[in-house]
């Protein structure tokens, strides 16, 4: 492989990683933007999502990678499982908000954040104890299509990952900017009290925010499984850490910031691995994070929401 082909391949790898981090960071940063809560349960909802999708695929009769679909049936199956998973994880997120966090709204200090850590551990251990610890082979009906650009390879799964991420990001952007509920979200983010006075049902807005964020996590979980052909109870940990970093890097609470941050971290990871060493990945990522925060404490794109004072 020539060095250009390698560079191109690593950019493809990096953008794929970045797309996954972005998708995961979006839901996370959305919740923060609205109620200033760092929701650590988010990353294990992502993990649960990848299992829910796996079970749906198995229920549809797909085991392993042997059975391959093309054309409309493939799109149909993937879309069905994607939507199903998003509804399920969305419901989990809404449940967490309604019964775990609503009572703590307005509670001072770190109580709600600690609660999300607790919920995160509950999800983590529920999966560990019910499905076991070994990595699970993922059901994947995608044909092994690949396109060669020089010696770099672009596979169907990368195209899928990119297109689903871009679609969901645009859909979310449209929802937040253009719909009535989206405007209510922005209002709640700016000032809960004022929004309430204007007749915004804040409880409902927060519930829907959790639903949407968790649905995005579920979508990311499904795509993770298709992309890597495996899932395990532990996948929320590293991906979660990176997505969290992506959100902070881009400016926490800022939706385009989460996308940019995710993409940057994906690229840093792959190019750092290529030209330095993989073992330094975390050092590089977190050094860049620290430097960005020193010079731009609000992240690259800044906070979209004015801080309450």
């Amino acid at each position, binding site marked *: 492989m020539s060095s250009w082909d*390698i560079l191109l391949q*690593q950019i493809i790898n990096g953008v794929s990683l970045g797309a996954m981090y972005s998708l995961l960071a979006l839901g996370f940063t959305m919740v923060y933007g609205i109620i200033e809560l760092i929701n650590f349960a988010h990353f294990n909802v992502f993990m649960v999502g990848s299992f829910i999708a796996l079970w749906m695929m198995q229920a549809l009769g797909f085991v392993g990678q042997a059975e391959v679909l093309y054309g409309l049936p493939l799109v149909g199956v993937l879309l069905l499982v994607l939507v199903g998973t998003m509804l399920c994880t969305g419901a989990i997120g809404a449940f967490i908000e309604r019964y775990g966090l609503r009572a703590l709204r307005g509670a001072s200090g770190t109580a709600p954040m600690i609660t999300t850590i607790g919920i995160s551990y509950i999800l*983590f251990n529920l999966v*560990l104890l019910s499905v076991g610890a*070994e990595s699970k082979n993922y059901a994947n009906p995608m044909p092994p299509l690949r396109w060669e650009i020089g010696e770099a390879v672009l596979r169907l799964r990368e195209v899928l990952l990119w297109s689903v991420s871009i679609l969901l990001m645009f859909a979310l952007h449209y929802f937040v900017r253009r719909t009535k509920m989206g405007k209510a979200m922005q209002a709640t983010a700016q000032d809960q009290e004022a929004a309430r006075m204007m007749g915004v049902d804040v409880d409902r807005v927060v519930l829907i925010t959790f639903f949407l964020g968790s649905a995005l996590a579920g979508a990311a979980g499904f795509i*993770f499984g298709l992309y890597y052909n495996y899932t*395990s109870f532990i996948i929320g940990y*590293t991906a979660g850490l990176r997505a969290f970093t992506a959100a902070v890097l881009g400016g926490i609470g800022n939706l385009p910031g989460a996308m940019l941050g995710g993409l940057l971290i994906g690229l840093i990871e792959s190019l750092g*691995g290529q030209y330095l060493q*993989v073992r330094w990945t975390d050092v590089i990522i977190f050094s860049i994070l620290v430097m960005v925060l020193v010079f731009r404490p609000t992240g690259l794109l800044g906070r979209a929401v004015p801080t309450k004072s």
Partner: protein
Amino acid sequence: MKQSKHTRRFFNLVAFAGVVALAGAGGIVAAQAQQKAVKLGITLPLTGADADDAGKIQHGFQIAIDEANAKGGVGGYKIEVVTYDSGTATAGQYDPAQAATNTKKLISDPMIVANLGPEMSGEGKAMTPILSEADLATITPSSTNPDITSPAMAAQFKPKGRAIYFRTVTTDAFQGPNMANFYTQTLKVKSVYVLDDSGAYGVGIADAFQKRAEANGIKILGRDQLNPKEADYTTILTKIKGLNPDALYYGGVAQAGVKLAKQAYDVIPKMPKGGGDGIQGGSFFTGVGFPAVEGWYSTNAGPHLTEDPAAVAFVKTFTEKYKTQPTDYSITAYDAALVVLDAIRRVAESGKPVTRTSVRDAMQTTNLKTLQGEISFDENGDIKDHTVSVFQYKRDAKYPADDYTHQNAYIGTAPQS
């Protein structure tokens, strides 16, 4: 696995209660109560990515202990077992910190005269300083890092000076280099890329492999380290593809190994790939699955046993009792338990009190016929036999794809030099 164990315990309990009731009716309960007992510890990573293989090791120990108890114990002593899990949810695999905590619990129970385990060298490194202080010997069927028993590192791993870490497998001082010889002589490899999983075992075996490979004239095109919790290894695999070595060597266990093998199948499908005993066993094999696992070489730090005529009876008992196939390390586990039971028997028969120190001393002078042959130890606790076996995962259509024993073809013993 956990469930069935509990159910079995429950049934044992019920059965035991029944026996006691009957015996009481017959007036012989006094004899029951008088039997002396000693305890053995078992420390294994029973949850996490290593659970499958650890369970198979645990079964190997248990069969030996059950057989001994069925014959009325050893030297008049009934054997009881205390099991500790050294895997944690936060680590997702074996956890050295948990292994150290468990060891402190072990030494606080004076009834425990020896320990069986651990599976992983990372656990072993955390356990040995504590074990050494208490003079409590342990015997491992699978931990192969040479540092733990090396005289050069005695201050760290056996501060009291006496060997307390015995093994029924050889170490990576042979496993890594012998595999490098196999790469040179059989695979005719001229250049190699070396990866490890940043664990004690993985780094050690990769170092040992790399050193011998260099000495054999193989060019090392690079060396890197994987974070076992990371999901994505395509970056490093793309880099390796660009460097285009003749082969890849991976030192490490299943958690990183499974993901590496799956992604390597996409990026470098044709390159010969191999590893040590960390990618032996069901955790790696089932996690990766065919077709990605096809072609991977691996080694065992001992002779190949599950298809050995001497082990036929054991394999049958194991399969019937646990409804799963044993691995070679189930058999070295059985052998390890035999060594400890034999030591207790010899101490008891010599009339000395059965204590940690006397059992340790007896283990040191072991000369026992086991399923893998005669076992005896050098003064560091290492087994004197240095056989390393090489395997290759190969799809054999005659057997089901998940039949580990038949899909993991035995190639032969690795060249010693």
